[in-house]
């Protein structure tokens, strides 16, 4: 496949087009992924998540700059929400990533979640695979502003960074309950503000409170001011240490297995839905939807009959 060859030989245009293709899905996208898949598995995939406004884009930009200074190439996938009503989206993460503009060692792609819940888009993992195949050594995935349920990133990344900020008061408890378990490291950003010590103390207390550390790794709580770059090198160090820890303790394989299971499950869901939509005409689809809406059929029975090897006569 020509696009795959161009992508593998370093064409940024081919990479950009490839990402559009996997976002759209379909047979060509599958062909592209099949061609590049043997070239993936080299990048360190780092998820960056946290509530809206905590500084995800700014930290991603600062981390990208830090790793560039260390001589490493960085791909970024920044996910923002689509409007549930129009399907449109404003993707504004690049505004805070201007410092990396014009650096051939950085590739930034904005992605709308296109209605997908969970904090990332359906095609985020595929876009990461393309950046990985194109040779980017680190791939940073910035999730949509996360609340409690946007934890899918943990299945897609090797290392997950959860960002918090001081002064969110009791509200922060809710966020912690959702995101605490998936954090491999915590960053308290905007640490030049009041209340940083209290936030750090709260997080450490939460972490020590009966939670068994995953993979024998105690998630560190770091402070940073992403805007000025303060503390960013230490965050980059901790991210690298986490991967080294996983490797040294034989845990990386487990993570990779979990990631593979996630990818496979997602591919099955997507393939199943696409094959149903290919077989069922638009009109029949509307009728099925109407049956569920009218409560004359339940969605599980219809799904089972649509996915059965033999379609039930209706």
């Amino acid at each position, binding site marked *: 496949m020509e696009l795959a060859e161009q992508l593998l030989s370093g064409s940024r245009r081919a990479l950009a087009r490839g990402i559009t293709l996997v976002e759209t899905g379909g047979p060509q996208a599958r062909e592209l992924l099949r061609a590049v898949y043997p070239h993936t598995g080299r990048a360190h995939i780092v998820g960056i998540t946290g509530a809206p406004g905590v500084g995800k884009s700014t930290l991603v930009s600062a981390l990208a700059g830090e790793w560039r200074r260390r001589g490493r190439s960085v791909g970024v996938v920044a996910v923002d929400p689509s409007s549930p009503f129009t399907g449109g989206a404003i993707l504004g993460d690049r505004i805070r990533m*201007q410092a990396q503009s014009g650096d051939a060692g950085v590739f930034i792609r904005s992605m709308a979640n296109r209605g997908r819940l969970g904090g990332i888009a359906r095609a985020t993992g595929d876009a990461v695979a393309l950046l990985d195949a194109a040779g980017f050594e680190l791939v940073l995935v910035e999730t949509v502003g996360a609340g409690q349920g946007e934890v899918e990133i943990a299945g897609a990344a090797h290392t997950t960074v959860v960002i918090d900020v001081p002064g969110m008061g009791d509200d922060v408890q809710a966020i912690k309950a959702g995101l605490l378990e998936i954090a491999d490291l915590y960053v308290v950003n905007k640490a030049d503000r009041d209340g940083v010590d209290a936030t750090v103390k709260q997080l450490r207390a939460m972490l020590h409170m009966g939670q068994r550390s995953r993979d024998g790794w105690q998630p560190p709580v770091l402070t940073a001011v992403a805007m000025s770059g303060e503390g960013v090198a230490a965050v980059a160090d901790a991210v690298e240490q986490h991967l080294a820890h996983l490797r040294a303790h034989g845990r990386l394989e487990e993570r990779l297995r979990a990631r593979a299971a996630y990818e496979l499950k997602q591919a099955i869901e997507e393939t199943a839905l696409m094959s149903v939509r290919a077989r069922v005409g638009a009109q029949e689809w509307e009728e099925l939807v109407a049956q569920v809406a009218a409560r004359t059929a339940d969605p599980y029975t219809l799904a089972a009959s649509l996915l059965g090897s033999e379609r039930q006569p209706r």
Partner: protein
Amino acid sequence: MERPIRVLVAKPGLDGHDRGAKVIARALRDAGMEVIYTGIQQTPEMIVEAALQEDVDVVGLSILSGAHMTLLPRVTALLREQGMEDVLVIAGGIISDDDARELRERHGIAAVYGPGTSTQEIVRFIREHVAQKA
């Protein structure tokens, strides 16, 4: 397969007045498009690099500084260098009729919009011209 139209909205040059650009970005979003908003003070090089990475169908440039006859042709020239002449480029701002004609006829700017243009007109233009391309 159906996919949303992707548009880069950028402000080349040094003026910091981005209200118009934001109104357009919002209108395009409401029309179901995915709008990559890069903000103010973009060089033509930054704009074209972002357009390439984001694989957009359309680049919308908002400029009020008066430097449009320098900056806008530079954007379309750089797009051509990258083999991206199929990207639709439109511009909005305070641009005289003579300049607008020259930008359209000689520099590959598909449309130039002045103050008071309805956002629906811009949405319609983009839909027609991107559809034609595909």
